[in-house]
């Protein structure tokens, strides 16, 4: 799980072009949207692409994204659950 979290942090930084932010700066439990990283609606869509491209997971309803993309840990939980299924 912790490996996946570290991997995800790096992937998020790369996919969203967060140049000034390093993996250590991201807390796995902190909200990704709102104050924290300054992500916006395009970033939310970009995270959907990340899950599909890197993990083969398709989010059909963008509304589900809110829960899944709450934090790095919720993303990791989602991936672990669905990759096993």
């Amino acid at each position, binding site marked *: 799980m912790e490996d996946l979290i570290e991997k995800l942090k790096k992937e998020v930084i790369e996919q969203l072009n967060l140049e000034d932010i390093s993996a250590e700066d991201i807390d796995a439990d902190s909200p990704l949207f709102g104050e924290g990283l300054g992500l916006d*609606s395009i970033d939310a869509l970009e995270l959907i692409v990340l899950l599909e491209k890197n993990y083969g997971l398709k989010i059909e309803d963008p509304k589900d994204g809110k829960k899944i993309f709450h934090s790095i840990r919720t993303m990791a939980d989602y991936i672990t659950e669905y990759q096993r299924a």
Partner: protein
Amino acid sequence: MKEVYIAGDNIISSLGFTTTANMDALRSGQIGLNLVTDPTLFPSPLPLSLVDTGVLEEQFREVLTLRGKTDSPQSFTRLEKFFIISIHSALAPLPIVPEDTGTLFVLSTTKGNIELLEVRNKNQFDSRRVFLWEMAHVVRDFFGFAHPPLIVSNACISGIVALVVAFRYLRTGMYEHAVVSGGDILSEFVISGFQSFQSLSPTPCRPYDAGRDGLSLGEGAGTMVLTTDRRLLKGAPVRITGAATSNDANHISGPSRTGEELSLAMLEAMKEAALSPADIGFINAHGTATPFNDEMESKSIALAGLLDVPVNSLKGYWGHTLGAAGVIESVVAVHALEDQLLIRSAGFETPGVPHPIRVISETVEQPMNSCLKTASGFGGCNAAILFERTIP
């Protein structure tokens, strides 16, 4: 300042190849959006508004013959054929000639010949053809326009910006006539992009409706010929009397939260035309049917004091035609004014925007003198243009 009149026009869409064919279809409520299964456009079926390729080729060969051209139809791209047929059709009944140094040529497109980037289309044309200026030069050379084309590429407001610039150049006397043509084709490029934004509806789009769930895409082209020479025109021609653009300065893809900036463009256009809200017969708005766009438009209409004015969007008929939209929807607005016709906003049933805008739910005749046409697009851009009848 001179008066700027609309002298002629054309629309090419899924609903037909002439303005008359399109107006007849709109009047009878015909919808041009159909479920299309075409893997070269998109992996799964999608409602799209496509121009009939068979008719397109037939019409294009006819234009070649009428213009005495010996070029092979294969030496023109699909979009160039749209533009050429549309300009030919708009100019044919008029004494205005492209070769005249008083004639301005304005072309609007968002993506031009973008399908030439696809692997399957490589080497069919010179690689320069993907540049918008090269495509516009092909169209210019076909007609022999005296001046190089003025090319506008400003996202979804491109067509209106093209009309606005022609309006201004004619008003101050820089040119006497203008041929303003806007067009875009549907391509895998554009569809995949809008799909990545999750903004495409699985069913024909429903502007302003409570159940709206995204936009539908279409293709087409339109041409409007403008002139300051009233002697060339019969009857009581429609004029352009005001225009403005603005920017949200908020987000590159999401619309303004307040609608203030679109309302600013609307109010500026009305100010230039010296019209008040009570003078406006109807608004032909952008109405893409994405939740946020339509919401923003309702806020703008409220802010501009136009809640009592009937509103429609034509996207429910032929989808969002991108660089063509501003032109073809303006052509419909002009003819609706001439015919004194409020056209039903297709796809609308239940009000679903924050302010009580008067969406036209039934096509009816009504006396009116002016139409405010608006559009908004990616990059936060907004545009508004006013069409007014000349009272005989």
